C-alpha cells in the first residue's frame, strides 16, 4: 500500500513536470512567431511581394528619324503576330490544322509550336507566326470563330522607307548582342533591338525612349490575376537630320552601278545634305534578321556594299590636294599671282624623272592657271619650294588626316605625312622626292571623301573650320566656327583657279559646267593611281585606263562648290576605279550642285 502511494505521488510529480515542459515549449513557439512576424516581417513582406508581383517592361516606341524637311527616314510599322493560348482552344490539333488552311506553316514551325506548348503552362500565349502583314492578320481575325484561343498581337518593327539609299547614314537596328553595353533593363527584353550602326547607333539614347512598366499580380503558377500599377513609358525622341532625301536620292541615282561615295554639305554650317556610299544594302534585311546567304553575298561583293566609303574608304586625294599645296605656298609667301612656272612635261630631281600628266607640258602658268590645267610640274616645284611641313600643316587646317567625328562608326583618320610621321612609321628620314609627289596628292597621303568635302567647304566659306554634322542646324552663322586665318585674297586665287577648271576653256572639267540663274560651280578634278606606272610603260606608252582590269583603274575624284560667287554647297565625289575625275566624278558633282541650287528655290517641305 505504501508503494502504491509512492506510485501515485510519482505520477503526480511527473505529470506536473511534463505539463510544465509542454507549456514551456508552447511559449517557445510564441517567440519564434514573434521573430518571424515582427522581427523579420519586413524581409518577408519584400519576399512576398517579389513572389506575387511580376513587373513587365513596356517597350517604348522608337523615335522617328526625319530628313531636314520632315520626311520619315526611319519609322515604326505595325507588325502582327498570331499567338495561341492553349487552354482556350478545344483541340490544339484542330486549331493548328485550320490555321494552316489560312496560312501555311512549315514542318519546322509546327515542331517549334508544339514544343513551346509542351514547355509552357497552358495559359501562356505561344507564338504561331510573326511578321504578319495587316492583310494576313485580318484574315486570321475573320476566321477567329473557327480558331478559338488564337489571338493577334500587335507590335512595332523598325522600317526604313528609303531602304538602301539611307542605309549608310541611318544604319539599322538589330538584336542586342553580348558585346553591347547593358545599361538599360530594356536590353534584356527578348526581341528588343538597338541601333547597330549609323544614326540609329549615334542617337541610340535619344531614339530609344524610356521603358514603362506594368506591375502584375501573378499566382504561384504565373497566371496573371490583376494589374496593380501601370507606368507609361516615354517614346523615343524624334531626330531631325540635316539630310535632304531628294539630294540623297540624286546621289545614288548619279552613282548608279559605280562603287563610290558622295558627300555634300552646306559650307557655312557643316550640315550634311547628302551622304552616299555605293553600292549599298537594304537595312530592312538587318532589322528583320539577316540570312546567312545574304550576309555572304554582301561580304564577298568586290564593290564592298557594307563598307562606308564616305568615312571608311581611304584614297589618295590626287590633284584635289593641289589647292592645299597652293594655299600653303601662297600663305608662306613662296607664291603669288605673278609667279609663273614653266612646264615641259617632266622635271628631273637627281636621276629621277617626274612627269606631268600632259606629256607635252603646259608651258608657262601661274597658280590660277596651274589649278585650271591641273599642271603637275607647277605643284612639284611649289612643293619642293615650301617643303612638306608647311603642306602638312595646311592640309590639317582643312581637316585632312584626322577623323571628322561626324558620328558614323569605323571612320578612318587618313594620313597626312611629314618627316616626323615617316620617322615614326618607318624609322626612315624624309626624302625630297616624297615632298614632290605629295605636291600632287600622291605618295603617302590618304584621305576620306568626307574629309575632302570638309576641305572644299572650308575653302568655299572663306576659311572657317566648319565641322560636318548630321544634325539640322538652327542658323547659318559660320562665324561660330574657328577662322583658319587664311587671307581671303589667297583663298580667292584658289577659288578662281577652281572656277576656271569648270568654266574656262582649257579647264579639266569643262564638260561638267552649268549656269543656273547665273550660278556656277567651281571645282577640282583628281585621280588617284591605284597601280604605279612603270618605267617600261612610260617608254612603250602608258596603257589606256579603259584597257586595265577594273580593280587596277584609277580612282576618279572631284571636289566642288557652288555658287562660285556666294558659295553655299560643297561636295566631294569619289568613284572607285572611275578612271577620270573630269569625265566621271565631275559630272556627278555638277549634277548634285545643280540639283541643290534648283531645290533651293523651292525649299519647302515635301511629301
Amino acid at each position, binding site marked *: 500500500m505504501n508503494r502504491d502511494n509512492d506510485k501515485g505521488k510519482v505520477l503526480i510529480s511527473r505529470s506536473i*513536470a511534463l505539463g510544465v515542459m509542454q507549456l514551456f515549449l508552447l511559449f517557445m513557439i510564441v517567440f519564434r512567431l514573434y521573430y*518571424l512576424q515582427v522581427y523579420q516581417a519586413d524581409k518577408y513582406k519584400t519576399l512576398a511581394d517579389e513572389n506575387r508581383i511580376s513587373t513587365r517592361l513596356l517597350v517604348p516606341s522608337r523615335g522617328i528619324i526625319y530628313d531636314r524637311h520632315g520626311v520619315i527616314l526611319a519609322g515604326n510599322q505595325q507588325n502582327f503576330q498570331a499567338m495561341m493560348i492553349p487552354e482556350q482552344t478545344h483541340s490544339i490539333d484542330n486549331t493548328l490544322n485550320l490555321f494552316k488552311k489560312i496560312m501555311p506553316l512549315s514542318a519546322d514551325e509546327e515542331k517549334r509550336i508544339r514544343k513551346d506548348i509542351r514547355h509552357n503552362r497552358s495559359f501562356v500565349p505561344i507564338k504561331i507566326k510573326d511578321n504578319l502583314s495587316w492583310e494576313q492578320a485580318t484574315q486570321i481575325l475573320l476566321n477567329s470563330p473557327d480558331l478559338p484561343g488564337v489571338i493577334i498581337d500587335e507590335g512595332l518593327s523598325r522600317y526604313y522607307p528609303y531602304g538602301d539609299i539611307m542605309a549608310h547614314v541611318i544604319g539599322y537596328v538589330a538584336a542586342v548582342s553580348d558585346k553591347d553595353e547593358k545599361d538599360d533593363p530594356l536590353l534584356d527584353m527578348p526581341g528588343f533591338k538597338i541601333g547597330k550602326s549609323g544614326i540609329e547607333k549615334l542617337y541610340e539614347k535619344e531614339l530609344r525612349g524610356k521603358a514603362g512598366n506594368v506591375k502584375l499580380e501573378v499566382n504561384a503558377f504565373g497566371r496573371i490575376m490583376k494589374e496593380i500599377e501601370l507606368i507609361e513609358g516615354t517614346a523615343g525622341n524624334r531626330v531631325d537630320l540635316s539630310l535632304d532625301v531628294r539630294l540623297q536620292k540624286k546621289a545614288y541615282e548619279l552613282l548608279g552601278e559605280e562603287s563610290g561615295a558622295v558627300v555634300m554639305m552646306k559650307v557655312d554650317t557643316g550640315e550634311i545634305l547628302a551622304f552616299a556610299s555605293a553600292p549599298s544594302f537594304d537595312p530592312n534585311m538587318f532589322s528583320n534578321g539577316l540570312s546567312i546567304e545574304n550576309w555572304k553575298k554582301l561580304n564577298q561583293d568586290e564593290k564592298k556594299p557594307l563598307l562606308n566609303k564616305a568615312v571608311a574608304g581611304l584614297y589618295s586625294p590626287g590633284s584635289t590636294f593641289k589647292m592645299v599645296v597652293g594655299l600653303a605656298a601662297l600663305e608662306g609667301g613662296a607664291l603669288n599671282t605673278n609667279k609663273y612656272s614653266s612646264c615641259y612635261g617632266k622635271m628631273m630631281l637627281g636621276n629621277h624623272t617626274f612627269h606631268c600628266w600632259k606629256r607635252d607640258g603646259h608651258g608657262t602658268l601661274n597658280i590660277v592657271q596651274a589649278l585650271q590645267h591641273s599642271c603637275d610640274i607647277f605643284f612639284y616645284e611649289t612643293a619642293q619650294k615650301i617643303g612638306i611641313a608647311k603642306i602638312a600643316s595646311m592640309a590639317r587646317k582643312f581637316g585632312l588626316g584626322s577623323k571628322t567625328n561626324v558620328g558614323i562608326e569605323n571612320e578612318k583618320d587618313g594620313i597626312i605625312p611629314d618627316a616626323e610621321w615617316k620617322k615614326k612609321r618607318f624609322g626612315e628620314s624624309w626624302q625630297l622626292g616624297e615632298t614632290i609627289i605629295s605636291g600632287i596628292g600622291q605618295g603617302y597621303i590618304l584621305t576620306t571623301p568626307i574629309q575632302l568635302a570638309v576641305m572644299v567647304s572650308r575653302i568655299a566659306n572663306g576659311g572657317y573650320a566648319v565641322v560636318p554634322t548630321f544634325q539640322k542646324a538652327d542658323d547659318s552663322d559660320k562665324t561660330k566656327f574657328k577662322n583658319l586665318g587664311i587671307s581671303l585674297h589667297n583663298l580667292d586665287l584658289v577659288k578662281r583657279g577652281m572656277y576656271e577648271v569648270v568654266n574656262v576653256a582649257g579647264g579639266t572639267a569643262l564638260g561638267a559646267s552649268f549656269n543656273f540663274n547665273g550660278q556656277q560651280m567651281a571645282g577640282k578634278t583628281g585621280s588617284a593611281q591605284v597601280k604605279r606606272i612603270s618605267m617600261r610603260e612610260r617608254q612603250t606608252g602608258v596603257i589606256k585606263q579603259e584597257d586595265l582590269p577594273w580593280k587596277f583603274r584609277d580612282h576618279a575624284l572631284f571636289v566642288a562648290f557652288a555658287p562660285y560667287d556666294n558659295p553655299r554647297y560643297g561636295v566631294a565625289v569619289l568613284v572607285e576605279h572611275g578612271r577620270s575625275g573630269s569625265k566621271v566624278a565631275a559630272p556627278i558633282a555638277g549634277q548634285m550642285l545643280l540639283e541643290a541650287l534648283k531645290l533651293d528655290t523651292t525649299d519647302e517641305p515635301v511629301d
Partner: protein
Amino acid sequence: MYKAYETSFKGQRLNWGDKLWNISFSYVFLIVLLGVIGITILYSAANGSWYPWASKQLIRFLIGFALMMALAFVDLRWFLRYAYWFYFLVLILLIAVEIGGHIGMGAQRWINLGFMKLQPSELMKIALVLALARYFNSTTLQSIESIKGIIVPTAMVIIPVFLIIIQPDLGTAIMLLLTAGAMFFTVGVQLWKFALLFCSGAAALPLAWHFLHNYQKNRVLTFLDPERDPLGAGYHIIQSKIALGSGGIFGKGFLNGTQSHLNFLPEKHTDFIFTMLSEEFGMIGGVLVIILNLLIISYSYFFALRSASYFGKLMAVGITSSYFLYVIINISMVLGMLPVVGVPLPLISYGGTVIMSVMAGFGIILAVNVNRFINIGKDQG
C-alpha cells in the same frame, strides 16, 4: 455542492443529471472556439467559400462534438474494462489495411465510412493511451522501475508503431512513440532509461537513415537547409515562412492573404493552415490560437491532477500529450523548426479522422473530470 457530488460517489454511481452538471463547459467552449476558428480559416482558404472544405469540416466537427459529449457521459470504469479490447481491435484494423494495401488496393491507410475516411493509425493514438493506462494502473512502481516490467508495455508500443512506419506514415509513428514516451515518463520510468534509449537511438540514426524513403530523406535534408532546393522540397518551408512573416503583427486581413490565395502556400487547408491563419490574422491570430491550445492543455492537466484514480490521471495525461504533440509538431513545422512530417493542426486543419480522434480524446478527458471522485483499484478491470 461539491460535497454532495462527492457523496454521491460513495455508491460509485452517478445519475445523468450529475454528469451533465459536471461537464466542464468552459473546456467545451474553448474547443468549440478553436473549431470555429478552423472553419473560418477553411472558408478563407477556399477564397471565401463554404465549398469544398468549410461546410464538410462543420459537419465533421458536429459529429465529433456529439462523440465528445457522448464519451463524457461514459463511466470511467468502462474505459478500463474495454481498454485492451479496443487496443486489439485497432491493431487488427491496422493489420487489415496493411494486408489490404499489399493485396493490391494501393497504399490505403484508411477504411471508408462514407462520411469520412477512418484511419486506424489515428484511432491507435487513443487505443494505445487507454491500453497503457490500464497496464500501468495494474502494475507496481517496483515493476515499472524494473527492466522486466516495461517489456510488455514497450511491446504494446512497438508493434503498432512498426505497422504504421511501414504504411509509411512516419509522422503518426513518431507521434505514437512520443505519446507513449510521455506516459512512460509520467508513470516513473527512470530518466537514465530515456537517456540510454536516446543515446542508442542516436547511434542507430545512420541505420535508420538507410531505411528512410527518399522523400523522407529529402524532407530532413530540406529542413536542415531549405535553400538546398527552393523550388522542390524546400519550397514548402520557404513559402510558409514568407507567408507567415509577411503577415506581420496584425495580418493582411480575413480573405486577404496574398501568398495563400495566390497558391504560393501549399497545403494551405491542411498542414499549413496555421501559416494561412497567421498571414491573414498576423501574430495576434497566431498567438490567440496558441493561447487557446495552451488553455486547453492546462485545463486537461488540471483535470488529470484532480482525478482520484490513477487510471483516470494517466489516461488524461496521455491524451493531452498526444494533443500537445499535434499542436507543437504542426506549428514548429510550419515555422521551419521541424522537418515537414505531415502532422495536421487539430481542430483547425481540414481532415476528418483527426477531428474524430481529438474530439474523442476530449470526451475521455471530460469523462475523467466527471468521474474524478471514482476510485479505481489496482486490480480492477
